[in-house]
C-alpha cells in the first residue's frame, strides 16, 4: 500500500515535470514577443531600440537554458516570480483569483446536481413519459447552445430588460456580500446549464440500468414499497457512475469556465490566463497552467488512493 502510494506520487511529480517543460516550450514555439506587443498598441510605432531596451528590462535577453532552470527552481519553491507586463507577483494574483473560479464552479455544480439528479431519477422511473421527454429536450437544448449564447441571453433578460441583476462584474464578498451574490447568480446558472445535460443523462441511464436488476423485482415482490426500493437500493447503486462524472467535470471546468468568466467579467483564474496568453506574459501563463495541472493531477491521485483504500480489489 505504502509502496504503491509512493510510486503514484513519483509518477504524479514526473507528470508535473513534463507539463512544466511543455509550458516552457510555449515561449519558444508560439510567435509573438511580449516587449514588442506591449509597445505596439494602435498608433504607436516603437523603435527597435525601445523594444530591445524593454526586452532587457523583462529579462528576455538571457539564455533560454538559464531561464528554464530558473523557472524550474522557482516552481519547486512555489515561487513563480513576477509578471513581465507590470511586475506584480504572480503567486499573489493566483491566490486572489483561483478561489473565485473555484467558487463559481462549486456553486454551479451544486445547482446542476440539485436539479439534474432528481430530474434524471424521475425521468428514468417514468421512462418515455412526459417528464422524460421534457428532460431529454431540455438537456439536448442546453448541450447544443454554447455557454456564451446562454450567458448573453441571460444578461439581456435579467440585466438589460428586467434590471434584476448587474450585467456582469465582481464585488468582494467581505465588503459587499449582497452585491457579490447578485454578481454570482447569472454566471453560476450559465455554467450549471452547461453541465446539466451530462449529469441528467448519466443519472437517467444509470438509474434505468439499476432498475433492470433482478433484485429490484425481488425487493418489490417481497412487498417493499416502491419508494423505499428506489431510494435505498436503486439510487445508491446508480449514483456511483454519476459521482465519477461529477468529479471529472470538476476538473474539466477548471479550464473551461473561460468563456463564462469573459462574458460576465468574472475575474477568475481562467479569464486571467487568456489575458496572459494575449500579452505573451510567459511566466504568468506557465504558472497558471502548472497550478491547474497540479490540481488536476492531485485530485486524480487522491481518488486513486481512496479507491485503493475503499476497495482492496483495486490494484494500481
Amino acid at each position, binding site marked *: 500500500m505504502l509502496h504503491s502510494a509512493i510510486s503514484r506520487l513519483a509518477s504524479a511529480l514526473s507528470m508535473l515535470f513534463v507539463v512544466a517543460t511543455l509550458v516552457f516550450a510555449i515561449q519558444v514555439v508560439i510567435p509573438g514577443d511580449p516587449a514588442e*506587443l506591449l509597445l505596439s498598441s494602435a498608433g504607436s510605432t516603437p523603435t527597435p531600440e525601445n523594444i530591445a531596451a524593454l526586452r532587457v528590462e523583462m529579462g528576455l535577453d538571457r539564455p533560454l537554458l538559464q531561464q528554464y532552470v530558473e523557472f524550474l527552481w522557482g516552481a519547486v519553491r512555489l515561487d513563480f516570480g513576477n509578471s513581465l507586463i507590470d511586475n506584480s507577483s504572480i503567486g499573489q494574483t493566483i491566490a486572489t483569483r483561483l478561489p473565485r473560479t473555484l467558487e463559481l464552479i462549486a456553486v454551479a455544480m451544486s445547482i446542476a446536481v440539485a436539479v439534474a439528479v432528481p430530474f434524471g431519477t424521475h425521468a428514468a422511473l417514468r421512462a418515455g413519459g412526459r417528464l422524460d421527454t421534457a428532460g431529454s429536450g431540455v438537456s439536448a437544448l442546453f448541450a447544443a447552445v454554447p455557454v456564451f449564447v446562454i450567458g448573453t441571453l441571460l*444578461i439581456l433578460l435579467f440585466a438589460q430588460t428586467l434590471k434584476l441583476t448587474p450585467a456582469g462584474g465582481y464585488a468582494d464578498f467581505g465588503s459587499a456580500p449582497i452585491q457579490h451574490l*447578485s454578481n454570482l447568480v447569472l454566471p453560476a446558472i450559465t455554467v450549471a446549464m452547461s453541465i446539466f445535460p451530462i449529469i441528467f443523462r448519466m443519472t437517467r441511464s444509470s438509474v434505468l440500468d439499476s432498475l433492470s436488476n433482478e433484485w429490484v423485482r425481488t425487493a418489490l415482490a417481497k412487498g417493499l414499497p416502491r419508494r423505499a426500493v428506489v431510494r435505498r437500493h436503486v439510487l445508491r447503486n446508480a449514483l456511483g457512475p454519476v459521482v465519477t462524472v461529477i468529479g471529472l467535470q470538476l476538473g474539466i471546468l477548471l479550464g473551461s469556465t473561460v468563456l463564462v468568466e469573459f462574458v460576465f467579467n468574472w475575474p477568475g483564474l481562467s479569464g486571467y490566463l487568456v489575458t496572459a496568453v494575449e500579452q505573451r506574459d510567459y511566466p504568468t501563463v506557465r504558472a497558471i497552467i502548472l497550478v491547474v495541472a497540479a490540481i488536476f493531477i492531485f485530485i486524480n491521485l487522491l481518488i486513486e488512493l481512496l479507491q485503493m483504500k475503499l476497495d482492496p480489489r483495486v490494484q494500481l
Partner: protein
Amino acid sequence: MSRLHALTMSRRAFLAAAGAGIAAVQLPGSASAQADAGVLRYALSAFPPSLSPWLNAGAAASTVKTLIMRGLLGYDTEGQLIGEIAESWAAVDPTTYDFKLRANAVFSNGKPVRAQDVIWTVNQISAPESTAHLRTTLNQVESMEALDDHTVRLILTKPNAALPFALASPNAAILAEGSTEDAPIACGPFRLAQQERGVFIEVERNPDYYKNGSPQVDKIRLTAYADENLRMAALESGDVDIIEYVPWSAYSRFDNNDRMKLSGSLGPFHVVLFNTSKPPFDNPLVRQAIGYAINREDIVAAAFAGQGEPLYGFPNPPGSAYQASTPENSYTYDPERAKALLAEAGYADGFNCTLLATSTYGMLQDTAVVVAAYLQAIGINAELKLPEWASRITAGNEGQYDIAIHGTVGEYNDPDSLYPLLHSSVKTFQNSFGFASERIDTLLEKGRGELDPAKREEIYKQLAQAYFEEVPQAPLVWRVQSFGLARNVEGFQCLPGFLGVTSTAILLDQARFV
C-alpha cells in the same frame, strides 16, 4: 365558500411572497444602478497592461495615466493645445521654447513643481536605456535651463513643429525629481486609491490639484470590460456611467433613448499596407490599382454598421489646421482603371497573394473580407491570413505578408502625426514593409521643421500628392469612435480627430453628474 376563501388567500399570500422574493433579488441590482453621486464609474475596454509613466502601453493605459499624471501641455474640449502644468509657453525663436509653470502646481508628496523637475523628467525620457515612447522626439532637446524656479527653457537641435504636441501626450508626464517608474510622484487631478490587476482601478480626487474647482467628482472607478457587448449591457443596465469603444452595431440603441447618449468623432482610419520589398507590390502601379479597386462604402457598411466615412486619399486628421487633399488626388472606386493599371504593370491576368489581418478584431477581419472580394473582381486572388493579434504584429514586423489590413490612429491632430506611419526611418508593423520614398521623407521632414502655417499647408499639399502617386498605403475608411454616457453625465465629450482615442481622458476631471 370558506374553502374558496382559503384558496384565494393562499394565492394572494403566494403572490406576496413571490413579490417579496423578486424585490429581494432586485435590491442589489437597483443598488448598483443608483451609485454614489460622487463616484464616476468608467468601463475600460481593457485593463491597462502597464501604468509605467512614459511607456506607450495603449489607450486604456493612457486614460488612467492621464487621470493621475499630467504633462506641461494639454487640450481643451475643442482639441486645441492649452497649458497644463505650464500656465503659458512661447517660442522665443524656432528652436527655443520657454515654459512658465503654474505656481500652485504641487506633487503628491507636497512639494511644488519646479523647473528642475521638468529638466529631470526630460532627461529621464531621453536617456539611452529609456523605454519611453517620446525618447526619439526629446532626444532633439539640445539643452535645458531653469530661468527661475518656475520657468524652464528648452533649446532644440532644430525647429520641430511637433514639439508642443509631444509635450501634450499622455506619455509625457512631468514627475518629481527622483521618482521611480514603479512609484511615480505626479500632480494629476486624481491619485491612485486602489486597484486589482486585471479587474479595476480606483482613483480619488487630488485636493491639491492646480485647476480650481476640479476635479468635479470624488472618485472614478475604472473597471475593465473586455467584451464590448457586456460593456454596452453594463451601460444600459446602469452598472457604469461612461463606456469607451461603443460597439458600432449598438449605435442605434442610443436613438430616442432618454437614459444614455453618444459622443464620438471620426479619427482612427483603416488602410491597406504593402510588402514593397518584393514583387508585385514593389510596383507603384499595382498599389495604385488596389487604390481604385475597392468600393469603400461597403467597408463602412460591413465593418462599422455605417458608422464611418470613406477615405479616398491622404489621411489628414479631422480637426487638422490644414487643407491637404483635393478631388484630383482621390482614389474613387474605378475597377476598369484598376484593371488597366494592373495590365500596364504586366499583370493583366492578375496574380495570387496573401492578405494579412487579424481575428482578434472583428472590424479588421470584416474589412479584410470586403477588400478580398473586391480584389477578386480585378483578378487578384488574396488568401486571407487571420492570426491573433500578437502573431499579427510579429508577422508585420518581419514582413511575412504581401498585403495587410491595418487600422491605426495618429497621436495628435496635425498632419505631422503621420510621420511615424510614412517615414522610411520607422520600421514597424504599422508601416508598409520595405517602403521608402525620398520624396515623402523629405516632405515629412520639411513639414516638421517648418513653423509658418502657410508654408506648412503648401508642404502637406505636396505630401498628399506624393501619397497619392506613390501609395505608401492604400487609404480605405475613417471610422467613428465613440463614448457612451449616462444621460446625467456632463462635462465629458469625445475630442475631435486622432485625439478622440488618445487624449479624451484629459476631460475626465471636468466630468460631473447633473
